[in-house]
């Protein structure tokens, strides 16, 4: 009772089972896998993808797509780098960078909602425009050396846990609450389900859609903060192709590409599945190229399972 049945609970359990299975197999196969140092390593690696995928979950739940998150990640890193090198304090530079990522997302959203252009096209354009600006601004060279306070965010730790882990898990928890428990989340899913119905009910679809894009931009900005501060360097090509990982994780997590159905919990589990697998294959000294193949295969199978369990329920 009172539980949100918008997403498929049984599918989430299948995912969780798969994650546990992978962990068991890897723990048996290698003594180096299941220990705190390695687990921390996995969580740390997952942090960036988790942040991107949380935003993407909202986006896809609303029946939209954001291809610009990788570029926003890189752009935010550059902005923060430029501000710090320009003499701005760490905290204001970080805040300004995050604000910029939010605004880029908002602009994406405004163009989609008010310009009536498909989100795929809008964010594809944003992606190439941002990447172009980065290459011009940085002269295709990386910037580095941003000071201890800044690098602490990416590589510092709170007790035994790295700061990126804390940030990403907090964001994931907040994302889960927002999508499944708030009006904003409900409207987000409704936009994906039946935009016109929402509009007829007097809710401004344009406003909420724009905010969803802004939220997704902010998530990408937070990922950019972590990438940049961890490396203590703003790379012009940082985040390139990450949008595809975020989309794959979101879909694997059970969010429907058609919109109207989404699960942050599923996204979190899916993110760990892919990152645990990546880590495990590295530990087992299997080439990362195989991991790419495996990711594709898992994605296909998972979507097939998710679709078939849906079909059973929809047929009356």
């Amino acid at each position, binding site marked *: *009772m*009172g*539980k*949100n*049945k*918008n997403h498929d609970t049984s599918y989430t359990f299948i995912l969780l089972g798969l994650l546990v299975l992978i962990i068991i197999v890897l723990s048996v196969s290698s003594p180096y896998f299941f220990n705190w140092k390695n687990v921390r390593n996995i969580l740390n690696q997952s942090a960036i993808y988790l942040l991107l995928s949380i935003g993407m979950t909202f986006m896809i739940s609303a029946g939209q797509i954001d291809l610009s998150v990788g570029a926003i990640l890189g752009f935010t890193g550059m902005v923060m780098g430029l501000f710090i090198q320009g003499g701005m304090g760490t905290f204001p530079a970080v805040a300004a960078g995050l604000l910029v990522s939010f605004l880029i997302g908002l602009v994406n959203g405004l163009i989609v909602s008010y310009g009536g252009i498909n989100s795929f096209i809008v964010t594809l354009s944003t992606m190439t425009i941002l990447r172009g600006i980065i290459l011009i601004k940085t002269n295709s060279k990386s910037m580095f050396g941003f000071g201890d306070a800044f690098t602490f965010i990416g590589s510092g730790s709170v007790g035994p846990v790295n700061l990126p882990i804390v940030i990403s898990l907090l964001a994931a928890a907040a994302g889960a609450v927002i999508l499944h*428990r*708030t*009006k*904003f989340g*409900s409207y987000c*899913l*409704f936009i*994906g*389900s*039946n935009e*016109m*119905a*929402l509009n*007829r*009910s*007097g*809710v401004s679809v344009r406003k909420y859609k724009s905010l969803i894009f802004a939220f997704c931009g902010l998530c990408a900005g937070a990922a950019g903060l972590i990438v940049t501060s961890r490396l203590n360097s703003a790379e012009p090509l940082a985040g390139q192709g990450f949008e595809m990982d975020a989309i794959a994780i979101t879909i694997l997590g059970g969010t*429907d590409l058609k*919109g*109207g*159905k989404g699960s942050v919990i599923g996204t979190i589990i899916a993110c760990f599945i892919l990152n645990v697998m990546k880590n495990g294959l590295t530990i087992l000294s299997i080439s990362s190229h195989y991991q790419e193949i495996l990711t594709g295969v898992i994605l296909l199978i998972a979507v097939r399972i998710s679709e078939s369990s849906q079909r059973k*329920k*929809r047929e*009356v």
Partner: protein
Amino acid sequence: MWKSESMNRNNTPFLRAENIYKKFGSVTALEDVSLTVCLGEILAIAGDNGAGKTTLIKILSGVLKPDSGKLWIDGKEASDLTPAKAIKAGVSTVYQDLALGNTMDVTSNIFLGNERSAGGFLKKREMDEEARKLIADLDIHIQDVTVPVGSLSGGQRQGVAVARLISRSGKLLIFDEPTAAMGLKESRSVLKLIQKLAGDGYGVIMISHNLPQILQVSDRICIMRQGRVIGELAAAGSSLEEVEDLISGNEVESYGQE
């Protein structure tokens, strides 16, 4: 017949339209149309395709503005009607597509745009409880208000759409072809719902092509042809042939030729 004793029956019109004209370019869609509906009664609007039924209900629900003519809702003049104003005044339309989100649960659909929340957080339990009550009051059988609307039958979906309007304090409900593309059993449950609404004191305007259904359910039948109201009948005592002849404009003689 079965409702005339209803306590809620009220004889002052809840909605009154007078001398409505509407043209689209050179095409006259409505010409001097007047009608009234009281709470507790079912007014059916019948007519062939292109008779102006849809244009008329779009004007009554504020979607279209008439070129001239006057509207009163609940005794107040409502000449500058918009969809939002109409809903506020108690006039709500159940669209043919029902405007439901199929992947969303019953509760979210009922409270769409009208959620109970505190600081942005949904009061899910409270809404579920209220949704259950609304649905029980309408005699709709939905076991679980947390299932997606897409998994319900056509009749149940109509019920959810109606529950939404009632939860927004709708008093006059306009149904646009409510049983179109429905099976016998589902049509029956929707008609039952419409009768129950009138019995509970709501006003109903219903557009339908299905004359036997109209005769069975409604109190009055307003017949339109080529943008005009050409007759109004009491459903009780009218025959199918009578209504058909009015709709098609057939004279008695033309039957004789067949």
